[in-house]
């Protein structure tokens, strides 16, 4: 346990001192501000555009914005935050493989699974931190300008999307445990998302696909019920657990 804590502390130090944490926190806050800001600015932009639009024969009706507009923006933009997150942390193992920094550590008799575990705990917690930070900022602004209570199932929707992201962090750890370069990790993670999307299009398997968790708009507008996602939740949790568990023997077998 003590050694695991030491490795975790080292990972944290790396994230702080390399400036990754600063970048992520700034991005999360910016993304959080952007959602209500875009919602706020939409009517104004439409007004600006309306002249040129009406010249083209399009008329713009009165646009009303509320918390739903802002939350729609949130769920539209959060994939971008996830992509940035994956890009930053896709090299969390591979950088160490390439520079050889793991060798002095492992040759001290540190069990390899502790490295996998520490790195997973770090990316998982950081994803949680970034996601909920972004959420909180948007939530605060929305509460100030509008009323968050007008959207239905907000917390389930947010929790599901967070889970989808958390699933991706564990898949990323899985591919990192055996691919030597970060390209492999990105391809593998991309492959997981593609497979999930493909499954999400097929009629019978659809409800099992983790992509179901990102159907947030239907939850917000009450056109879907949170219970409908239960199978997808189960699949995502199982896949995530399996990914992390399977990375241990894979990493044990890796030649460094």
């Amino acid at each position, binding site marked *: 346990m*003590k*050694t695991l804590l*030491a*490795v975790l*502390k*080292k990972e944290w*130090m*790396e994230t702080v*001192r*390399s400036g990754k944490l600063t970048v992520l926190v700034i991005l999360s806050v910016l993304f959080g501000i952007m959602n209500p800001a875009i919602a706020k600015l939409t009517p104004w932009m439409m007004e600006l555009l309306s002249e040129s639009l009406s010249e083209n024969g399009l008329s713009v009706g009165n646009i009303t914005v509320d918390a739903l507009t802002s939350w729609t923006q949130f769920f539209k933009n959060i994939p971008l935050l996830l992509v940035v997150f994956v890009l930053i942390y896709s090299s969390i193992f591979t950088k160490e493989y390439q*520079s*050889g*920094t793991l*060798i*002095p*550590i*492992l*040759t*001290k*008799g*540190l*069990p*390899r699974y502790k490295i996998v575990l520490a790195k997973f705990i770090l990316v998982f917690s950081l994803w949680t931190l970034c996601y909920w930070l972004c959420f909180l900022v948007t939530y605060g602004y929305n509460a100030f300008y509008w009323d968050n209570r007008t959207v239905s199932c907000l917390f389930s929707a947010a929790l599901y999307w967070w889970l989808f992201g958390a699933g991706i962090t564990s898949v990323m750890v899985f591919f990192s445990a055996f691919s030597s370069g970060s390209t492999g990790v990105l391809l593998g993670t991309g492959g997981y998302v593609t497979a999930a999307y493909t499954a999400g299009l097929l009629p019978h398997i659809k409800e099992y696909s983790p992509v179901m968790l990102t159907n947030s708009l239907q939850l917000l507008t009450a056109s879907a019920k949170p219970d409908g996602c239960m199978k997808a939740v189960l699949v995502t949790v199982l896949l995530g657990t399996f990914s992390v568990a399977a990375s241990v023997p894979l990493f*044990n*077998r890796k*030649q*460094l």
Partner: protein
Amino acid sequence: MDALTITNLTKKFGDKTVLDKLNLSVPKHSIFGFVGKNGAGKTTTMKTVLGLLKPDEGRITVAGERVVYGQTKTNRHIGYLPDVPEFYSYMTPYEYLAFCGKISEIPAKDLKSRCCGLLELVGLKNEKHRIKGFSRGMKQRLGIAQALLNRPKLLICDEPTSALDPVGRKEILDILLLAKEQTTILFSTHILSDVERICTDAAFLDKGTIVLQGSVSGMRNLNSSKKYVLELADRKDTEKIMQAFTGLTLNQNHELVFREESGLLFSILHFIAEQKIPVQKLEHMEIPLEDLFLEVTKP
């Protein structure tokens, strides 16, 4: 019991056999020089001992305990200095050692004094900067400090001196000599003068097998390594001897050089006595390890 025993180790990369039934044993409290050309397989052997590479065949034991690939249990007996040591560049040397100490489960109360002691030993005590800007030599020193941290029974150093200037090399060798008090040292190199300077034992690696192994003093006294130099007063006599015997060579100073094989020395001396040839000089020459190495690794 030996600190390290390797029996019949075979390692292939694809269809290329790098190690071919290699046998090696490193006696306790020795400084063991592991000599081989570039690409001979020194690093491969060491990494296999550390469980970082999977052997195709063979058995390795460290302090009597068997090495299992991927399971790093035997590594608690070992300190390792990689050939190109890389450490976390965002830490200071002290922070790095303290981190290593925690993962080797050194009791917290000893940790500080041990880290400081080692930093002093390798001359990095006053270095408060992060590892990022370190030179090769500084990284090499930090490498030795981290390798000695858990008081290993076996210290494995992969070419600790090859990237250093003469002063740095001497300093590293001196540190190794100091470390000898507490541990067994296996170090690879292709600098034979380093072996002559500090090693008690050595092994020569060529084409994936050990071609010669033993104590350094024993190697020096090897029969095949005994050479004689004979100088005669008259050049004509030199030619006479050259014609009468085989296996002699002439060096630049017109001296005869030969190996003591099947009583050659006595036959020549007999010949000289019979013919009453005046002798200027007869010398027993100790050949440097380098020549011995070149000889045993001849293609």
